[in-house]
């Protein structure tokens, strides 16, 4: 997390530099926050294992990049192809992990109508199982990623350099978020998701397959989470515990924006990224993680419904 921000403060381009870094981080948070908010929308529970969906995407794209780039310097065309492939593979890995998670940790409990605490505990179990499993299989050290593009400065805003990395994040993120928003708003399946979020019983009477809709929700959220994992891992590499902090922050972002609301998650993510980035100007960089938790606690206490306090079912 402190990667971008600490770099920028040494450059001395305080405001604009922090803003660029904050927006880039914010887009990643937003993409992860979408996963929390969608699952919350249909199931009314916090998917604690979402951090491992993020990690899954990061690991899958890490190995892809290792195979594709492998230390070479990709040309411009290659870079574009690699990024697209990375997005696809990272997203698919995230979606697959989310699907498996729903099957193993949630569906048996859903069949039984288990109490709410049970879901949280089984999700915690799934999270611990998954990331330690990755740690076992892929080692417990930080592995640096073969970057699919050269991270040079593309242009400057008021003296603050804007690097390729930020541009890739923003482009990919905006495409993903907008298409998800359109999908949920316009498509038949998206209407199903909104219907289940609004009133699952009635939705099922209207012919919506609830199980499939819930799976679809996990898959969509998982895809975005996986892509976020890929983008996040490009500069700092992968490690089995990488998902925890960004996911917790993304959760804070989802709550900040109003959990259950898609656009709220995006706004919350951007806002949190920017606030966190600027906080470096006031606190020591090591306390940057405290900011997100403080935001979370404050929001829950002052305005628990978040900025856009409405539901997935009512939004878009």
């Amino acid at each position, binding site marked *: 997390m402190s990667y971008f921000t600490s770099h920028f403060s040494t450059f001395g381009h305080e405001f604009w530099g922090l803003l660029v870094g904050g927006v880039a981080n914010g887009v990643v948070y937003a993409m992860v926050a979408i996963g929390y908010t969608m699952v919350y929308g249909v199931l*009314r529970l916090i998917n604690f294992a979402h951090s491992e969906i993020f990690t899954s995407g990061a690991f899958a794209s890490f190995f892809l990049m290792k195979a594709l780039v492998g230390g070479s310097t990709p040309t411009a065309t290659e870079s574009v192809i690699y990024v697209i492939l990375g997005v696809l593979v990272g997203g698919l890995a995230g979606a697959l992990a989310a699907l498996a998670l729903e099957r193993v*940790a949630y569906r048996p409990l859903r069949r*039984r109508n288990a109490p709410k605490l*049970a879901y949280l505990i089984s999700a915690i179990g*799934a999270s611990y199982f998954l990331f330690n499993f990755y740690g*076992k299989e892929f080692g417990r050290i930080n*592995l640096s990623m073969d970057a699919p593009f050269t991270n040079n400065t593309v242009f400057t805003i008021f003296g603050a350099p804007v690097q390729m990395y930020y541009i890739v994040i923003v482009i990919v993120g905006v495409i993903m978020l907008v298409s998800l928003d359109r999908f949920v708003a316009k498509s038949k399946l998206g209407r199903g998701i909104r219907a289940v979020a609004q*009133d*699952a019983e009635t939705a099922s009477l209207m012919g919506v397959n609830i199980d499939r809709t*819930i799976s679809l929700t996990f898959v969509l959220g998982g895809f975005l989470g996986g892509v976020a994992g890929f983008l996040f891992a490009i500069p700092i590499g992968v490690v089995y515990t990488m998902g925890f902090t960004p996911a917790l922050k993304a959760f804070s972002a989802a709550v900040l924006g109003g959990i259950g609301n898609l656009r709220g998650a995006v706004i919350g993510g951007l806002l949190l990224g920017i606030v966190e980035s600027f906080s470096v100007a006031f606190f020591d960089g090591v306390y940057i993680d405290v900011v997100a938790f403080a935001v979370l606690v404050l929001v829950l206490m002052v305005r628990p419904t978040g900025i856009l306090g409405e539901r997935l079912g009512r939004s878009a």
Partner: protein
Amino acid sequence: MLRVFQHHMVKRVAGAILIGLLVLVMTGPQGNGSEPTSGFTGSFSEHMSFFGFFTPPRWITFALLALVLSLLVMFAKYSHRAWRRAQESGAAAARAVASAAARVKYVRSRRSGRYSGYALLVLLGIFLPRIITSQSWQTNIVQLVAVYILLAIGLNVVTGFAGLLDLGFVAFYAIGAYTTAWVTGALPTSPPFGIHFNTFFAIPFAIILAMAFGVVLGIPTLRLRGDYLAIVTLGFGEIIFIFANNLYGITGGSTGTNQIPYLSVHLGPLKYLWGLTPQPYYYLTLAFIVLFLMIFSSLEHSRVGRAWVAIREDEVAAESLGIYPLKYKVMAFAIGAASAGFAGVITASQTLFVTPPTFSLSFSINILVLVIFGGMGSIAGVVVGGLVIQGFVVYMIQSPPAWYNPADLYMYLGALLIVMMIFRPAGLLPSRRRLREVTQVESGVARDQMLTHIGPHNRVEEEL
């Protein structure tokens, strides 16, 4: 072709094979990032001793496992007659067990019977160092069993009795450990006037400070419910960790301190030093476990305990009956924190050092696993759960089998949590009341507590 996969038998067999594969990889060798598939391929190709008789490649062992599992699921479904015959012969044994269980239940239902059960456990605890004489075993038993049980019975008050999922419980343990370091002058900051207290003063200090911290932490967070509370407590746990890791002037930062003295008594002629052997620590911890168990179990049946149950089952209803939820929830936090604070003293003064990495989220999860496995809200269950799981952990550390790597502990604990939630959500020895709550919710009583994926839910405001 695809329809074959929808046949229930095919599904079961596929499930059995998948479980076999998963176990194969889970128990396989450690991989590494430079050769991402080495863990997987090694899981198949490496050789594994089969009870010392012969050493086939691992995949043969696990193919056999999958075959046995598949046969079991097929056998259980198809050979009804054999199944029934087995059941009948089993029935006699089952009846014997049932009557014994009824007897135990009857004995347990009487107060003297219940106490005789506990007395038996305590006796076993007292003579345990005579049975297990190895020093490293004993040290591990204090650090990994006794301390964990202390923490688990504390978390049981919060999570089991009051129904508050606290993922930052390790914070109280950290407070206890750091207080010990502070009181004995091992930290960069010392007690005022340069007084260096005897380590024993750390015990009341740590307990009181942990309880006070429970109140401080509880008042803002305990207004939240359910999963929000879990995440916020987790956040607070992380904040404590970050501060402990970075406030070099106060906590010693990431290296912590290793200057803590052993517990000792110097009262005139009476001189006694804890720590040369693990036994004194063992008995001290045992005594405090018994003390805390007595306090907590009497609390369970007191006015406070009943208030906790009421809040756990329906906070709104409890409030309407004049129970002020926040007060009792904060009490649960503070009381649960007491045993964690004491556990911190034991850890700090026996291992002589405190470092932040000890107090990670994983630690809270480990304690949570003990509570869940034993049975939330059931004191006996939590103690037994702690004994079983942590006893197993110690055994694995002392004599690790080839397939087990201590670094994978949390992988197994995570899997255990899922399995428990699927098959036995109320735990190994469920508290009767808690079991009833679970079954009631699952059968649709207390509708508003269950996960409403059916039915309208405009409940965001209420849930928070």
